[in-house]
């Protein structure tokens, strides 16, 4: 059995794009978006919402991807998600019936002192009505319902509120997770999605961290269906032989908060197809 080595090294933060210890989220944001602007001057800002397809390295995959988006493989899933949303009267639990609000997710809940994702809010809404919460938080019904929810905000620009000190604590937790090396293969998220973004790892192009999540849930052939963002996080942990965390764990929600804040200003594209 593989011994799983989780190595959190501060040194991982030391080189390349790095954040100074005292910098706040606002400075981080400038540095993060500035890094990609500088290294990919020909990629228009909004393009980062398209994941790896934004990159020059993916130029020859782009046409095929656009073609698939015309008859997207997730259409049926999206319809199922809408039906579930309506049958279970989920609109009753959300501001504005859930329309046009996804760009503010995840958010800090002051009362409960925790980061709330739409997955948690959907399950809470079901529980409140005396119904069973959705168990699988990575695929299936949850991915379908979240797709419907986020599709009602398509094109809206990410805006995350970090004004509460509690939110900033979780933001910092997520930021640390993103920059720390882990797993037997010793990679940080940033190694692949900042420092090597736009390069090939074997036959795979590495997407930029900028834009991570705005297209989720996403459809992948490898998955044979839709998956949530936390499903992807788990996959990315596994490929460096690190132990994946549970979907909706505190760490993954903090990571989502960090990644979402880095996307400030990008238009939502979910659901999407990633081939």
């Amino acid at each position, binding site marked *: 059995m593989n*011994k799983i080595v989780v190595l959190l090294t501060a040194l991982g933060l030391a080189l*390349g794009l790095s954040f100074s210890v005292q910098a706040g989220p606002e400075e981080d944001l400038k540095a993060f978006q500035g890094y990609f602007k500088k290294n990919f001057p020909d990629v228009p800002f909004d393009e980062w919402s398209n994941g790896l397809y934004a990159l020059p390295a993916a130029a020859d995959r782009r046409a095929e991807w656009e073609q698939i988006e015309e008859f997207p493989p997730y259409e049926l899933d999206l319809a199922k998600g809408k039906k579930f949303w309506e049958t279970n009267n989920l609109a009753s639990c959300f501001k504005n019936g859930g329309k046009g609000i996804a760009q503010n997710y995840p958010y800090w809940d002051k009362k409960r002192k925790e980061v709330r994702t739409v997955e948690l809010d959907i399950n809470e809404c079901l529980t409140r009505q005396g119904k069973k919460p959705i168990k699988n938080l990575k695929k299936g019904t949850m991915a379908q319902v979240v797709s419907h929810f986020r599709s009602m905000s398509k094109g809206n620009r990410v805006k995350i509120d970090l004004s509460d000190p509690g939110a900033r604590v979780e933001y910092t937790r997520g930021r640390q997770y993103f920059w720390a090396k882990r797993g*037997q293969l010793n990679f940080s998220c940033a190694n692949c999605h900042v*420092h*090597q973004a736009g*390069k090939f790892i*074997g036959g*795979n192009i590495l997407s930029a961290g900028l834009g991570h999540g705005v297209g989720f849930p996403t459809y992948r052939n490898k998955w044979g269906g839709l998956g949530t963002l936390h499903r992807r996080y788990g996959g990315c942990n*596994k490929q460096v032989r690190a132990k994946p965390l549970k979907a909706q764990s505190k760490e993954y929600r903090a990571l989502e908060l960090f990644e979402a804040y880095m996307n400030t200003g990008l238009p939502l594209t979910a659901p999407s197809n990633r081939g």
Partner: protein
Amino acid sequence: MRKSSTLFGALSAAVLAASLVAAPAAHAAKAGAGKGGEMPSKKVCAKATDPLVVGGCLATNRKKGNCMACHQFKGIEKTRLQAGNIAPPLVAMKQRFPDKAKLRAQIADPTKANPNSSMPPYGRHSIVSGGEIDLITEWAHTL
């Protein structure tokens, strides 16, 4: 056994000629590095005993070295493996690493030279054994 799906596994599936970013320097490398320069097939690897061939087998095994995920090197174009372009091509190794111990050290723990290296610390994290690092080092030195 835990399935390591992965960076390492998934890569094979993608069909993309563009990933064979031919590193110009790779072509400049001298041919005739002997067995070390040849890309061993699965069949050959299954019963290989020649240390250089075994080294090459370890280096190109996805569960072991998987060096081609990031590096381009001679012989890869003769296989169905896809090389990445994250790292510098492995060429002219004898000239660039006259001291074999330095080459071995880079493979055993690249974070010594660059703490933020994207290269896995094969020795420090026991990704392969010490003996396997020796074999990979011998093979890499022939490139």
